[in-house]
């Protein structure tokens, strides 16, 4: 008999390129009847503790997570981002353990670099354009923790000075392409750090990557694969699930939600055994939905 748990372990908040607050992110999934959730922003963990508080008050489990950015062929014309989800055990939330990890510290540095990157872009604008986006000059004095992340910055540009949207969208790609300090590593190297931090690595939306051969090599190295996601058609999801089961790897089902998106998932959620592998502890019986 197989036990299942209703989950969503991949989605974004306003701390990266999502729109939901951590509280809204968890509350939406609470209404969906989910038992275990993860707010997995790109490279930063700012949402985790807020989401954990909301989840705890809703009787849910919050898995500390982030979507780590690596690259295939960084710095070449064939460069493409490659994302690996890092799931920390629930116990990482206690006694500041999450904050001790190298990925968390990397996230803080990335956050600081993002602030500098945006301020540099603003500084290069025509003063009239800059005034439209930041009329009071408050961004200069905004600390990294409160500085608008990607989606919030896009929304700010669209609302305050729509003609600059395309310019900012095109410019922001350089944050990654030129961010060798943080992103010039292979997925395998990222996976090694994830494991060294005590977390579990799951390759995010594997069908998205152009380089199939390298993707297959990373999948062979990884602990698991995100099979069901809004980025995969149903038949693709089934293929990745079959691959994972044949290779005795983990497979997950998540939304990759950026704003309460509708998404596909197997009706029963995820395997209890997988959820508990990621949590690195047993799930309370009351949260197991079906058997």
């Amino acid at each position: 008999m197989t036990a299942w748990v209703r989950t969503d372990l991949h989605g974004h908040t306003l701390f990266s390129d999502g729109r939901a607050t951590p509280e809204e992110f968890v509350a939406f999934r609470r209404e969906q009847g989910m038992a275990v959730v993860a707010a997995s922003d790109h490279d930063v963990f700012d949402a985790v503790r807020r989401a954990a508080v909301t989840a705890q008050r809703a009787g849910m489990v919050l898995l500390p997570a982030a979507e780590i950015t690596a690259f295939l062929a960084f710095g070449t014309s064939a460069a493409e981002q490659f994302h690996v989800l890092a799931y920390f055990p629930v116990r990482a939330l206690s006694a500041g353990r999450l904050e001790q990890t190298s990925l968390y510290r990397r996230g803080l540095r990335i956050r600081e670099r993002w602030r500098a990157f945006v301020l540099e872009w603003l500084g290069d604008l025509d003063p009239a354009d800059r005034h439209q986006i930041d009329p009071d000059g408050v961004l200069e004095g905004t600390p990294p923790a409160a500085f608008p992340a990607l989606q919030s910055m896009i929304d700010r540009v669209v609302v305050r000075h729509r003609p600059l949207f395309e310019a900012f969208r095109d410019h922001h790609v350089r944050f990654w392409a030129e961010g060798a300090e943080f992103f010039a590593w292979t997925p395998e190297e990222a996976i090694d750090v994830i494991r060294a931090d005590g977390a579990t690595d799951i390759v995010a939306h594997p069908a998205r990557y152009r380089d199939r051969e390298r993707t297959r090599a990373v999948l062979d190295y990884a602990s698991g694969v995100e099979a069901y996601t809004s980025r995969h058609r149903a038949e693709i999801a089934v293929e990745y699930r079959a691959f994972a089961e044949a290779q005795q790897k983990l497979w997950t089902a998540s939304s990759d939600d950026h704003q309460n998106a509708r998404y596909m998932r197997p009706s029963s959620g995820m395997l209890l055994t997988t959820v508990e592998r990621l949590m690195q502890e047993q799930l309370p019986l009351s949260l197991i939905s079906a058997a």
Partner: protein
Amino acid sequence: MLKMRVIRKGVAQVAGGTSLVLLGTGHLGCASPIEQEPAISGELKSQAALDVGYLDFNYQAGTPLNLGFVPYSSPDEFVHTGEQLDIRIAASTLWYRVHPTEPFPTDVARVQALRAEYRVIFQKSGATVRELRLTSGAWTGPDVWSLAAATPTFVVPSSGVDEIAFEVTLFDGAQEGSTVNYAADDFPSVPVFGGELPLKHLLFDNLGSSLRNRIVERGNLLRDNTFVLSYTDWRANTVVDSLSIDRQIGTAIGFGRFGQYEMPIYGDLAYEISYGAGHDGAFGGAEQRLAANGNSRVLPYGQGRTAYEGNVYAYGNTLNLYFHIKAYLVADYSKYTNVTSRRYVDGERVFLRERWDNLDGEPNRNYDFSLENAP
């Protein structure tokens, strides 16, 4: 029989305290006399000893400065009179508030030059009844990333208090002039339960799919007294099965990192919640509407949460309650730009469904509460 041994501490001493009180440091202005509730002996294993927690001074969404005091208490999420607390702040929070644009240093000794001073103001109906001054003293955590500074413990007065307000000064002892002051209005007060007796709070909420009700002050409701009846939005979600409600109200153009795209947009659920009250099984008057309260004392840390509340007078031996919930969809397009299609008129309030919430969902099976005389 429960025996409690109470150790009375002198002025300016607190159980477990290390570097308690700063008087005349200049950071918090004029100091006033400090009183401290009797500390509870660590030998106790009583109900009172269970009420131990701490206040995390940290990011709190929806507050004026996105900063607030969130309690982590045992055995529930509420702060009670007589509870033993301390205040903790993460080193990174402290640093970024004092040095908002400077990178967080990796030198533990450098970070430990930071200090937080708190004026803890116990209030009743908005008036100060007692106050404490505490300073962060003990740093814990193996390295700079997990460092947190805690105050000595203190005990919430055992009566006559309904909330705690705070004034805070953060400063860097290694850098002259690096001081940030926060006034009491900068943070929401922390509600304290048990200090308003005979007023009690009866809370109907849920934990996941499980419906539950709690008397926050514990014990029974008090006969011939008024209590506050609260019914939460999340419970209403559960009872009406909000998951099965189609909340889409149209579509709009969204802008993201990959360009612009059409996205579904959603309306908000709104509830009308009424209760029927009986006394010793006799139901008389009409159902009474509960008022939506976005600033409820029983949901003080829930950004955007709503409790539906009313004052109810309890008499007889048993109070009987049931609830009547009506759910509406509110089509508010004003929060979206570039709306491309609308299913409803802007501002339209669409009736969706109604449900009754009583014990087991069966007719004539109400939630029953025994009453007792006020002490």
